[in-house]
């Protein structure tokens, strides 16, 4: 079989660490190999060269040794298709993200590892078969989860292109946080004057359907065809009858909810510009006096409304659930919970807002009088490793500068101090805005992180303590009102939503994008897009930009009308099947059944997790590209030329851990070279026999890495793998092998650092154990072990 091997130097990214010439020499000596190297395989000339050489040499299988297949996999698939080869006859050796970028200090070992990786890819390629791509129709409808500014802009863009959109919003109104602001930086234009018209456009648009007080409960399906279950809470208002005269019902309501910043009645609208402009009844506060029902002439109030379950079928989903302001109560030195006059920027925003609780007046909450001195404290809940908020929230500096200016405009002779660590006035016109705050408005900026806010013993003033870093001096400044510029967290319950959607989060809980720069509005799952502050802290302008980018991607998808799906679902070799039914028990998708003494696969139901293939004792079931034979050959080729101690075989799940390993690469986190990673679609497709095989053929350790139990792309794949792992350990003990040589770990796609740490820890551990001893696991034992493993698995 003629194998074409293309090695990429990637500028100095790969060739700076790995000795490409050595790799080239190694493979060009072998027969049936056609080896080529290029500085940039992904460039136009590189791609053209690949096509030319494939045609000229009549190659049958292609191996690309370059970056991660997650980055350029589809590019090279298309390339070889152009050269006339089935695009699934391609195998990748990831020598950048999982080699040169993480082993830059160890070029010799990295080069050896690269040869191993290429060997593995070649062995896998040899056993690849041509596959037919599968196509599915796309339902040209989008669901947008979260109706803040990002959701609104994305919805309008898609609806204006002629496609249907439904917006799912958990609050009674759309508009999100932007609807609560008074003015926006750096232009100081009125927030709701910009947002209001967009909100009414949503309401009127024929292609947009809005569902408020609703939450996503369940999502099933793939790109092009998602089935979504939504729970809609009752508003207790008959929306067909209500004519938005919300004054009448709210005036008669006896229940006032006395929140300083969000006062309302039990029946009320959130704010006068709300969309839809129906009042809602807060069930927790309503005493059921029905005064409102009597007052309403239209009889629009309906206390009998119940929760509704709605079913949707959509082709794509945009997640734009936005942010949650940081709760400063956990920083006890700031005494936020203890003194009324310490407020957050969001609460001040309510005071500045003409529709807010104070009608636009700035008052001290404790006395109700205007303050003479206001202090802003920046970086509250941002850039703080202690509370695992290492990131900069990006908007708080600008927001605080804006508020400082508004406060100064509101009360001209007020004394405004801003305490900062670093001012990050990033964004167009923002630095000028900051300068104006200093020059035109005379706001004082003091470089200091505040250490404590306490109350004066003698008066009702507050005292701010800190060190003025520029003057090397301690200060205790008196002030009347303290505003904490709180940072941004991902929206509440993002964890839960991610489990429902099966998408990945980064280490702070924000949604993980496919690529930070190139594909920032795509989630880890095809067909699910992200927009706004749920991807990371963002100001309004960036949220909108990302929302429209997500919308553009949705429209691109819909224009195509059908979508190509991975053909990685299970295939049956009927002659091998002896109807043992082990596969039937483990499949959770009803993709297998037995009729007339024959096993059938229902292709539409199969997700391709491969749990059944791992159970099959006769290799009757296989996932193409990930057959037992293919994985086993990869293991054997590494161990045949074992060149490192300890040598660890790693099985990485495609969705979480492989992406995590790539992230370790892009973050350039070094870890030992000892791991030889094999990509599997899910840890559930890993047959324990392969773990034993690795150890018997001389691997010193085996590490299985998958998703967290709740995040598994195939619902319960990792749980299945964990169960098997338990029996693997038991069998190893019986076979006389230290059971600690095998480990299972959860590494999410956002946990590059954890991946590196796990690999380092495990390598050190195995170093301590020494090599796997042959006399401990002779051939007899290996067979026994395998038999036992089969028995054990049958019991599961």
């Amino acid at each position, binding site marked *: 079989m003629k194998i074409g091997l293309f090695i990429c130097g990637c500028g100095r990214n790969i060739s700076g660490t790995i000795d490409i010439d050595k790799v080239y020499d190694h493979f060009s000596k072998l027969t049936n190999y056609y080896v080529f190297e290029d500085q940039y395989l992904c460039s136009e000339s590189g791609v053209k060269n690949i096509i030319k050489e494939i045609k000229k040499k009549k190659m049958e299988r292609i191996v690309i040794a370059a970056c991660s297949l997650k980055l350029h996999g589809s590019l090279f698939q298309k390339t070889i298709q152009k050269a006339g080869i089935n695009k699934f006859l391609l195998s990748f050796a990831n020598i950048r993200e999982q080699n040169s970028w993480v082993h830059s*200090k160890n070029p010799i070992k990295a080069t050896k590892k690269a040869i191993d990786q290429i060997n593995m890819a070649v062995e896998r390629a040899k056993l690849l078969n041509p596959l037919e791509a599968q196509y599915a129709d796309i339902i040209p409808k989008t669901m947008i989860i979260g109706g803040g500014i990002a959701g609104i802009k994305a919805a309008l863009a898609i609806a204006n292109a002629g496609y249907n959109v439904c917006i799912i919003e958990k609050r009674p109104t759309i508009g999100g946080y932007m609807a609560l602001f008074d003015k926006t930086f750096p232009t100081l234009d009125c927030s709701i004057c910009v947002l209001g018209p967009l909100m009414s456009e949503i309401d009127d648009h024929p292609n947009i359907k809005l569902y408020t007080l609703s939450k996503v409960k369940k999502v099933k399906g793939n790109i092009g065809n998602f089935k979504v279950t939504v729970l809609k809470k009752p508003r207790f208002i008959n929306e067909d009858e209500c004519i938005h005269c919300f004054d009448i019902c709210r005036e008669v309501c006896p229940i006032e909810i006395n929140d300083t910043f969000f006062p309302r009645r039990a029946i009320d609208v959130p704010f006068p510009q709300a969309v839809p402009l129906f009042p809602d009844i807060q069930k927790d506060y309503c005493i059921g006096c029905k005064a409102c029902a009597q007052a309403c002439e239209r009889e629009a109030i309906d206390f009998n409304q119940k929760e509704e379950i709605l079913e949707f079928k959509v082709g794509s989903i945009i997640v734009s659930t936005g942010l949650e302001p940081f709760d400063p109560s956990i920083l006890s030195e700031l005494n936020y919970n203890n003194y009324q006059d310490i407020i957050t920027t969001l609460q001040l925003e309510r005071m500045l807002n003409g529709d807010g609780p104070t009608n636009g007046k700035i008052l001290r909450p404790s006395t109700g009088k205007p303050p003479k001195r206001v202090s802003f404290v920046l970086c509250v809940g941002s850039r703080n*490793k*202690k509370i695992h908020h290492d990131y900069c929230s990006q908007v708080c500096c600008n927001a605080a500068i804006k508020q400082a200016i508004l406060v100064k405009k509101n009360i001209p002779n007020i004394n405004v101090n801003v305490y900062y660590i670093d001012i990050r006035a990033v964004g167009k016109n923002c630095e000028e805005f900051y300068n104006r705050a200093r020059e035109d408005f005379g706001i004082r900026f003091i470089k*200091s*992180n*505040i*250490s*404590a806010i306490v109350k004066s013993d003698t008066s009702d003033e507050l005292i701010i303590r*800190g*060190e003025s870093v520029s003057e090397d001096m301690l200060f205790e400044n008196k002030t009347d009102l303290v505003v904490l510029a709180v940072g941004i967290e991902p929206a509440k319950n993002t964890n839960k939503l991610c489990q429902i959607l099966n998408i990945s989060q980064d280490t702070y809980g924000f949604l993980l994008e496919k690529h930070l720069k190139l594909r920032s509005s795509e989630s880890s799952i095809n067909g699910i897009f992200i927009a706004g502050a749920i991807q990371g802290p963002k100001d309004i302008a960036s949220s909108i930009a990302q929302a429209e980018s997500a919308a553009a991607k949705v429209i691109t998808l819909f224009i195509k009308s059908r979508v190509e799906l991975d053909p990685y679902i299970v295939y049956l070799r009927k002659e091998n099947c002896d109807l043992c039914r082990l596969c039937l028990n483990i499949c959770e998708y009803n993709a297998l059944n037995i009729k007339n003494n024959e096993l059938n696969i229902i292709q539409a139901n199969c997700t391709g997790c491969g749990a059944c293939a791992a159970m099959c004792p006769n290799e009757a079931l296989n996932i193409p590209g990930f057959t037992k034979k293919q994985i086993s050959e990869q293991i054997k080729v590494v161990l045949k030329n074992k060149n490192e101690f300890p040598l660890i075989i790693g099985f990485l799940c495609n969705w979480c851990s492989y992406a995590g390993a790539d992230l370790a690469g892009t973050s350039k986190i070094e870890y030992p070279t000892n791991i030889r990673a094999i990509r599997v679609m899910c840890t559930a497709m890993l047959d324990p026999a392969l773990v034993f095989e690795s150890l018997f053929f001389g691997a010193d350790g085996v590490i299985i890495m998958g998703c967290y139990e709740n995040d598994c792309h195939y619902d319960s794949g990792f749980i299945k793998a964990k169960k098997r792992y338990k029996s693997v350990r038991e069998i190893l003990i019986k076979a006389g092998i230290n059971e600690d040589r095998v480990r299972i770990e959860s590494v999410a796609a956002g946990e590059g650092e954890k991946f590196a740490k796990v690999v380092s820890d495990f390598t050190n551990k195995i170093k301590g154990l020494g090599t796997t001893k042959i006399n401990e696991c002779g051939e007899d034992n290996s067979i026994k072990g395998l038999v036992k493993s089969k028995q054990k698995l049958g019991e599961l």
Partner: protein
Amino acid sequence: MNEKIQEIIKRDICESYNSNILRKFIDTGLEEIRACINCGTCTGSCPSGRRTALRTRSVIKKALDGDDSVLKDIDIWLCSTCYYCYERCPRNILVTDMVIKLRNIAVEKGYILEKHFNLAYNVFFKTCHAISAKGENNKKWRELRESYKLPSLPPTVHSYPEAVKECQTLMKEVKFKKLLDQIKKKIKK
């Protein structure tokens, strides 16, 4: 991370900062100081600094810059090791541990207050106990012990005077005695 790589990184940083004090910090695993963003939280939080001239951030900054004068400075001995700065530092820098390390370096260089030296000498070498139970002043205390039916002297070197020798051997073994002698010489000079 590979040990060798760590070595290289450490060396690179020491060279770029050109500071002996920093090298010592890094040798004891305190390299987190590189993360300092000069926010002033440590100084602002310091209860000792509110009453004395101790400015934690300045002390650390001087040490980072390789300014040896920080070792002579009495400021480093004013820290009460209350760990406020340590708890509040947004960069997870082990501030208090660094002050303690700075004291260690200062002592090695012979910068120590005479009172501290005498205390260290008496407690850790000469007597091998911190609080004396003997003498007329401690009579009440001994009686108190007896009233609880305890031996009048506690089971320390007071009861086992022969153990003093052992402690002294130990102090010699760990080279504490040598350190004390060196300091003594330096103080005399």
